[in-house]
């Protein structure tokens, strides 16, 4: 190729490269700027604020060093909120996992109306947590004799139960657990369905030829191991979602005067500390940093334990 043509070609390639870079920033730039402005700057500001006494102000004034961290970690209410999360997580993660997998297996086997049942189980995902929590609180699990659950109990001669106010036994967990199960199971069912549909049919045929019985044996040795990647992702998402629980707790248990000391997850605790009338933004920021670290550690440990991202052998 003559040198002039080569130079023209190189110039054209350089121009195309520059154009590509320009268009990359045109499309990505606004979102990156938004992310930086509305997520990373407040995050950084929150970390700074956590080292200051900041009552009713977001302007750091009195430096307290690790004072807010000492206060938050020695506060029994904050520690109890982490326990609440642990209890909630222990209930909701396995329950959602098992139920969504069972639904996916059931729907996957259907020979007719599969799309209908898939939609029926998925539809609650579209409902707002706030609305669902209010339906559960006002209609199904209210504590008077004409609430739906109490009406059913009444048919068997049982006394009405104050579902959300009874701590011994802690019936409020039933209300909190069922509303979240109803809301999120459909979503995870879809993930499992996608996983199930990726398992080659030939695998089952080969297993059948080798004498594997359909049912539990096939599920135990073929289906479940083949769903490993989906299962790990679902478990991880469930734990992170459990940590972020706020809406249903707040709407089921709070009233105009506050929130009971039981079943107070970390985000509700931080909401009242930093954004409630207390407006202790330094302490709230320290709590947010601690919570973020806890989530990060749990996620990393869980990911390593379950082998997330490890190359399939």
């Amino acid at each position, binding site marked *: 190729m003559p040198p002039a043509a080569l130079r023209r070609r190189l110039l054209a390639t350089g121009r195309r490269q520059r154009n590509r870079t320009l268009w990359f920033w045109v499309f990505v730039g606004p979102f990156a700027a938004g992310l930086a402005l509305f997520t990373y700057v407040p995050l950084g500001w929150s970390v700074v604020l956590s080292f200051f006494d900041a009552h009713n102000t977001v302007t750091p004034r009195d430096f307290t060093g690790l004072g807010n961290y000492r206060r938050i970690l020695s506060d029994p209410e904050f520690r109890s909120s982490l326990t609440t999360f642990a209890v909630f997580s222990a209930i909701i993660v396995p329950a959602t996992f098992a139920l969504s997998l069972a639904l996916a297996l059931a729907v996957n086997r259907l020979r007719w109306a599969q799309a209908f049942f898939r939609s029926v189980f998925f539809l609650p995902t579209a409902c707002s947590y706030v609305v669902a929590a209010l339906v559960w609180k*006002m209609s199904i699990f*209210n504590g*008077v004799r004409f609430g739906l659950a109490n009406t059913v109990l009444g048919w068997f001669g049982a006394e009405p139960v104050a579902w*959300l106010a009874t701590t011994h036994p802690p019936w409020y967990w039933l209300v909190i657990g069922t509303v979240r199960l109803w809301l999120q199971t459909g979503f995870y069912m879809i993930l499992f369905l996608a996983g199930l549909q990726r398992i080659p049919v030939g695998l089952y045929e080969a297993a059948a030829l080798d004498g594997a019985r359909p049912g539990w044996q096939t599920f135990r040795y073929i289906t479940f191991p083949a769903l490993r990647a989906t299962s790990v992702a679902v478990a991880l998402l469930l734990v992170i979602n459990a940590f972020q629980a706020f809406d249903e707790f707040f709407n089921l248990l709070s*009233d105009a*005067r506050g929130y009971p000391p*039981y079943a107070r997850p970390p985000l509700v605790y931080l909401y009242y500390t930093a954004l409630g*009338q207390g407006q202790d933004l330094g302490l709230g920021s320290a709590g947010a940093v601690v919570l973020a670290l806890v989530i990060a550690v749990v996620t990393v440990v869980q990911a390593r334990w379950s082998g997330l991202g490890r190359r399939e052998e």
Partner: protein
Amino acid sequence: MPITRRRLLAAGGGLALAGATAAACGSNTGRAGGGSGGGLSHWYHQYGEAGTEQAVRRYAAAYKKTRVSVQWRPGNYDQQTAAALLSGSGPDVFEVNGPTLDQILGGQVVDLTDLLKDVKDDFQQAVLAPKTHGGRIWGIPQTVDTQLLYYRRSLLDKAGVRPPRSLDELVDAARRLTDRRTKGLFLGNDGGAGVLGATPLYAAGLSPVTADGTVGFDDPAAARTLAKIRRLYEDKSLLLGAPADWSDPSAFVQGLTAMQWSGLWALPQITKALGDDVGVLPFPADGPAGKPAVPVGAYAAAVSARSGRKEEAKEYVRWLWVEQTGFQQDFALSYGLHLPARTSLARKADRLRQGPAAEASRFAAEHGHADPLLWTVASKVAYQDALSRIIKDGADPEGQLKAVVRTTEAELARVRKRS
């Protein structure tokens, strides 16, 4: 002209830019007139009574010196105002269930002392005291809200129970009035932890914080009284899990409970449904040093220190909540029922001269108590949590109160340092 991909993207980008510009120009910042020579912005929380919103808009429209735009804000109003006060985009004037001591110490509200220069003594002193710090007044009480024990006369007569005059009698009456269809008493869906607050302490002759700024409930009498509230729960005399909470009289009107703790604002709805079959009482006294207790409180009009129009805002507050006595009377008495903040107006009010309203008015004057300013949010939350554990979990009242005493002492030391 053919539409190429590049042309389409350019057109889309142009439209988006134009849209963003238009949105930025016309966005609702919460301030009247978009901050360019507009009037004052005045925030109210959403009242339950019909007609209140129209009334406050009418008052604002009647102010001729400057345009006042009213924002009627449903939802968590206290959180909304607390967040708005941190930025310059909040209201000029706002009503507040306070202001809190931290809002005052944080310089978030404007000193309004001079607005009440000549009429301070005409305001109910029990509700003016928590608006006062360092001898300065930080909020102008709008109306006085009070809470009472409502009871159904016919149900008490049928059960042979007399209206309770002591806490022991209340516990006994609630138990005897409870049957399969009706509970004896409704103190809110949390069993009373939230709404009662410090009222049982006052009933025991104590207070959350004393006048000289020390803890007022480090006393065995406090634990004894709170144990009796637990008794109500243990006896299954309390209505729990009602569709509407204590502030709404639905449970009482529908016959789910024979007695209910609620606000005076509910009286018109109750008398409309039950006629004369209703009586009111203060929270009954407990123990030898005890006395009947009636909580009183007031939403106040405050001026944001971030307002760019502080003097105009103060002038408007003076006009509405000090000078316009007709509007104040209308606001207190025409929608639901509240006590006018000015004693001279309360004395003139026909609606407060007979029946349960007259009794409520008398109880508020004789036994009224308001939460002291030094009873900070952190102390209140710690106490409320303790009360909830005592009532529902049967936790030891003495141990629970000791922890609250420690929190309150730490809070008092903190605010003393800031003052």
